């Protein structure tokens, strides 16, 4: 979406191919959020599986509505360098069915819904750092506030044609700064406020289901093609196709790099390492994939795989409890991918800006990337920490300690993920307690 508006001799006309392609891409990006829910859900302990799934899923409900009501207007309306505004788009009123997104061949509605999916998954990404310990009501409110105060302005900076980062020439093809650094830095800000899980560094907190993690990573990988290849908003000049190829190449390279790092450092190629390496590669190629060549994408993947594998151990070193490594994978991966544009951009993809290794070997693009990366990082970290602090002082962000220890699923959702009762199942084969429970349910039903 970072393409400059080109002045064609003829005004663009609605392309049914591009429109269809973008609607499919939007659905693919939506699929990433349940995929993320499984990726995270498998990594927590049995007793907080449902809460982890729900923290992602609730974002679909909340952000969809606020995006329709005011989000799209504030993010992509023309306003200032820092926030947009378009009164006609509030509640998506006054948008014509065939009205085109300026400079492109797809309707405004299609662009709006594609961007909605990005706005949905970004707060969901943060939840991985907060596993096991945050009140669901406080989380739901945080999602709404964070999307409004942090995501929407940052998306405007980076992708709107009058955003300051866009105008400066910061390249972020599909969300390295707006999505991944943004979510990773927010995660860091929030956990510095709310603190560690009970038993962090003392109790074992092994993933309860690595098959779920792999399922989630697979869904993310699949959906990410929509996320990345769709970000050219159509595919008339091949840049979207380059992005598709680079997405695949960098992800494969990052997975292998993470596994190699693990084998050398810890002696085994783990399932969690393969899934995490793939996600690290997807994150890193997200900002850079439209600017680098496939060989550059391999370099981006390898560097991101090793950097993220090394970074996930930092939480034990520094003592902050980033439960599922949102900082280590999304923030670090996003920074790596965004900064490597300054080295590997060929000048032949999404823009003619070339990195240090191409063109006239100038550091120009690298400095621009640094500005984008560190501005988003600092704003997101600070604003998210303030939001978490305010919520903590009012609603309270954390569940009581006894509820955290006995399992957040039961206390927050009145459910548990798995039924481990008895060997026979049912009232006949079950225990007296089960029979009594069943009797109670009947009473409620009657």
């Amino acid at each position, binding site marked *: 979406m970072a393409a400059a508006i080109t002045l064609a001799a003829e005004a663009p006309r609605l392309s049914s191919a591009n429109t269809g392609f973008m609607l499919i891409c939007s659905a693919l990006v939506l699929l990433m959020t349940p995929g993320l829910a499984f990726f995270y859900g498998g990594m927590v302990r049995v007793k907080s599986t449902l809460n982890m799934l729900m923290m992602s899923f609730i974002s679909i409900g909340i952000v969809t509505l606020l995006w329709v009501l005011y989000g799209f207007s504030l993010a992509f309306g023309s306003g200032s360098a820092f926030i947009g505004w378009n009164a006609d788009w509030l509640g998506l009123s006054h948008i014509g069915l065939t009205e085109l997104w300026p400079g492109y061949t797809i309707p405004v509605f299609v662009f709006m819904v594609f961007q909605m999916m990005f706005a949905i998954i970004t707060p969901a990404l943060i939840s991985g750092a907060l596993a096991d310990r945050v009140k669901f009501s406080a989380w739901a409110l945080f999602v709404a506030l964070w999307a409004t105060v942090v995501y929407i302005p940052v998306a405007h900076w980076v992708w709107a044609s009058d955003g300051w980062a866009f105008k400066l020439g910061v390249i972020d093809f599909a969300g390295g700064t707006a999505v991944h650094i943004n979510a990773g830095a927010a995660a860091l800000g929030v956990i510095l406020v709310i603190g560690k899980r009970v038993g962090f560094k003392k109790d074992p907190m092994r993933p309860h289901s690595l098959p779920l993690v792999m399922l989630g990573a697979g869904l993310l990988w699949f959906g990410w093609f929509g996320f990345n290849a769709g970000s050219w908003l159509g595919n008339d000049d091949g840049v979207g196709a380059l992005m598709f190829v680079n997405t695949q190449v960098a992800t494969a390279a990052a997975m292998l790099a993470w596994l190699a790092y693990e084998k050398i450092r810890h002696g085994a190629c783990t399932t969690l390492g393969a899934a995490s390496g793939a996600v690290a590669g997807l994150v890193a190629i997200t900002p850079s994939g439209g600017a680098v060549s496939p060989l550059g994408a391999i370099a981006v993947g390898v560097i991101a795989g090793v950097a993220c594998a090394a970074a*996930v151990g930092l939480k034990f070193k520094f003592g902050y409890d980033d439960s599922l490594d949102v900082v280590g994978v999304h923030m670090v991966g996003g920074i790596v991918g965004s900064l490597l544009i300054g080295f590997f951009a060929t000048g032949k993809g999404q823009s003619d800006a070339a990195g240090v290794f191409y063109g006239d070997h100038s550091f120009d693009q690298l400095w621009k990337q640094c500005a984008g990366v560190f501005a988003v990082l600092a704003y997101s970290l600070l604003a998210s920490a303030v939001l978490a602090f305010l919520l903590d002082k009012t609603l309270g962000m954390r569940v009581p300690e006894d509820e955290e220890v006995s399992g957040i699923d039961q206390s927050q959702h009145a459910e548990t993920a798995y039924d481990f009762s008895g060997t026979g199942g049912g009232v006949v084969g079950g225990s007296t307690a089960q029979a009594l429970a069943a009797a109670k349910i009947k009473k409620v039903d009657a």
Partner: protein
Amino acid sequence: MRLITAVVKPHRLDEIKEALQAFGVHGLTVTEASGYGRQRGHTEVYRGAEYTVDLVPKIRIEVLAEDEDAEQLIDVIVKAARTGKIGDGKVWSLPVETAVRVRTGERGPDAL
């Protein structure tokens, strides 16, 4: 009578069952169990964080035998369970006061 209990590696179950059948044992009880001996479990790695898993999966086999067969039966189980590697398990026996076959009410050695 004696109760012979063996806590051994799960993958030796078939060999032990066959050996016991060849010896003439008509029935046994098998339970899934977990535990550790001198080897103290194993290590697992998740994103570089190492976890020591103390309890490893085992199976517990219980057989009732007449006094004169007990020692020989223990030898049969030990031979079938042995891999020579650490964690092969343990076998022990206890005196049993009585045993009853539920279906017929037979008692003592007749119930075996």
